[in-house]
């Protein structure tokens, strides 16, 4: 085959290869624009079934105070409003696990994940956490109490249908969270540890 034809065929092959690569890359970019990657919900095993366009509502989250070990302090956050109390509750737990945006202590270890959450007709919220809630808990009686009531008060204060909260670890009743507080029975709201009237507004959403 004459050399100039050979060079021409090689050149054509290279151009074709470049064109095909460009085509597939362009296709992928267009797909990404049309269908964005869903944002991961890092703290929830099952993301809440809430529309991204649902209206926002403010919720009060309770975090252990960094000033005094017997206190919980309130922070406001935004979540997507849902018709189901369980979906609102999942978002509240996700926000709690994500931590305080003020100078407050964590309510739960950041390694914790929410396995499941459901609310019964009798107003009992069952919160099933992964074992990291216990394994990575710093310990200490007051810290344990603060963790429990941060979860309980955050749910009961914001969701009218929830009166009591039962905490499970890995799907089962646990003796205690970190060796002290009885987890075998549900908790009711207890605001005696809460500093009332102090809120730190912060926006955010799932």
């Amino acid at each position, binding site marked *: 085959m004459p050399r100039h034809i050979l060079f021409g065929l090689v050149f054509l092959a290279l151009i074709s290869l470049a064109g095909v690569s460009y085509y597939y890359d362009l296709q992928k970019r267009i797909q990404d624009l049309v269908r964005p990657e869903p944002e991961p919900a890092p703290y929830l095993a099952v993301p809440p079934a809430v529309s991204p366009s649902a209206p926002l509502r403010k919720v009060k989250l309770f975090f252990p105070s960094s000033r005094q070990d017997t206190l919980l302090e309130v922070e406001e956050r935004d979540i997507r409003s849902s018709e189901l109390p369980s979906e609102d509750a999942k978002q509240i737990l996700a926000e709690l696990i994500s931590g305080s945006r003020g100078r407050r202590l964590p309510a739960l270890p950041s390694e914790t994940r929410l396995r499941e959450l459901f609310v019964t007709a009798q107003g009992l919220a069952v919160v099933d956490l992964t074992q990291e809630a216990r394994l990575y808990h710093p310990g*200490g*009686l007051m810290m344990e109490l603060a963790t429990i009531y941060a979860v309980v008060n955050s749910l009961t204060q914001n969701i009218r249908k929830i009166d009591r909260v039962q905490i499970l670890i890995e799907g089962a009743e646990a003796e205690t969270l970190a060796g002290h507080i009885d987890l075998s029975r549900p908790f*009711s*709201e207890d605001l005696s540890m809460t500093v009332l009237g102090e809120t730190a507004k912060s926006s955010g959403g799932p």
Partner: protein
Amino acid sequence: MLIKALGFTLCMALLPAGVSADAGRFLVFHKQARKAIPRLSIGLETYLPLIDLLRLLELPFAESASAGFVQITLGKNRLRLAKDDSQVLVNDRKIALSAPVTVVKNQWVVPLDFLSKVLDSALDVKISVAASGNTASAGESDFTRLNAKVVETNQVLRLQASRPISAEVRQQGSRVVLAFGNTPVEFAGSEGVQGVEWIRSLALEQSESTNQLVIELADNVRNAKMSHLASQNAYTVEAVRQEGAEATPDPSADLARPVTEAWKWRHITVDAGHGGPDRGVAIKEHVFEKDVALAIARKLRWALETRLRVTVVLSRAEDQAQSLDDRIAAANLARSNLFISIHTGNTAAAPAAYSYAYTARWILGESSVSETRNARSLFVPWWEAQRNSLAWSERLAECVQAEMNRSLNGGQPLAFRRSPLKLLSALAMPAVLVEIGNAQVPEFQAKVESEPFQNLVAATLAAAVEKFRPLHERP
């Protein structure tokens, strides 16, 4: 675990459960007079009839009752109480009580802390409740606290009042009586009285007809010399014995005290928290809460055995895993007279390494199962075994916290705390949990393993138990 729980409830059949009954009268000092209203005991809680209380305090009110709730209008204030709800609405503000409001024989009854949390704190009606929970003082005059102490080599009883007080002092045979008229008085405690042979008993008798401190003297005391030290707010009582009587105890007096012998301590359980794979708080590298707790527990056992001459048992003697139910069952089945659990604290919030004593409390809003069942049932649910001992546990916690404040907390006047603790709630004896120090404070980390510090902690706890013993052993 189910078998152990059943076995425990069977053993508890021999112990009396909480009963709902008319528990006598509740005395209120009001406007220079003493008035009383019925007092009810439901479980371990003291209840007072609400309307009788408001009438006694002469508070003008209007009442509006419906099925399940009652609304009280006190001047410009509005109270809303719902049946079986421990939250009271005061002018749309929620106040949590220690127990739910309820209705007994068509009367609305409220728990005792309604006086302090609602009337005193929320409605500014000046009223204070005595530590005994049996009396209250309404109006400007607060309680005068009386402390009894034996001084001068056990020969003189000194009654110290917290403020100037005048009493009519008289001797009636072997009784010395200090009558206080309508002055609100409460007995704060005694020191050294139990071991004194010439004082048989010391008691504050209060009712609508009487408000007096009665000191019963031993038979060999012919007379008592009483003095009023007005400048020191104190009274003293000195025994004048029969001629030829020896200072040594009369042997027949011991035989006359079989009730005291029946309450004598014989067994204490000391629990070292956590253990085995459950390391507790990480205090520093390779030092964990379980190790420090065990070291202190061993020292405490030695100190208690030496001081009190009773059997002291460790719930765990080695670094081993042990469930809370096993610890509870062992102490209950041994019918231990006292239980003390040792832990170390951990909080990033408090900058100081304070030590605290804890007693059990039940989850807010949770009513006692024993109330809803047959009040005279001998069976007590596993997790409610502590209810009958809670008052004693709180007195023990007061002693422990006082000693820890003195020796470990730099004199800070800290109060003991209450928490829904799994371990304590199922114990059928006076029980406290102590958290020593704070693992996040560098000074505490530096000294926690040292012998002198651990000895100090053990000595402090032993001293507290020694002070509590005469309060508990006295019949």
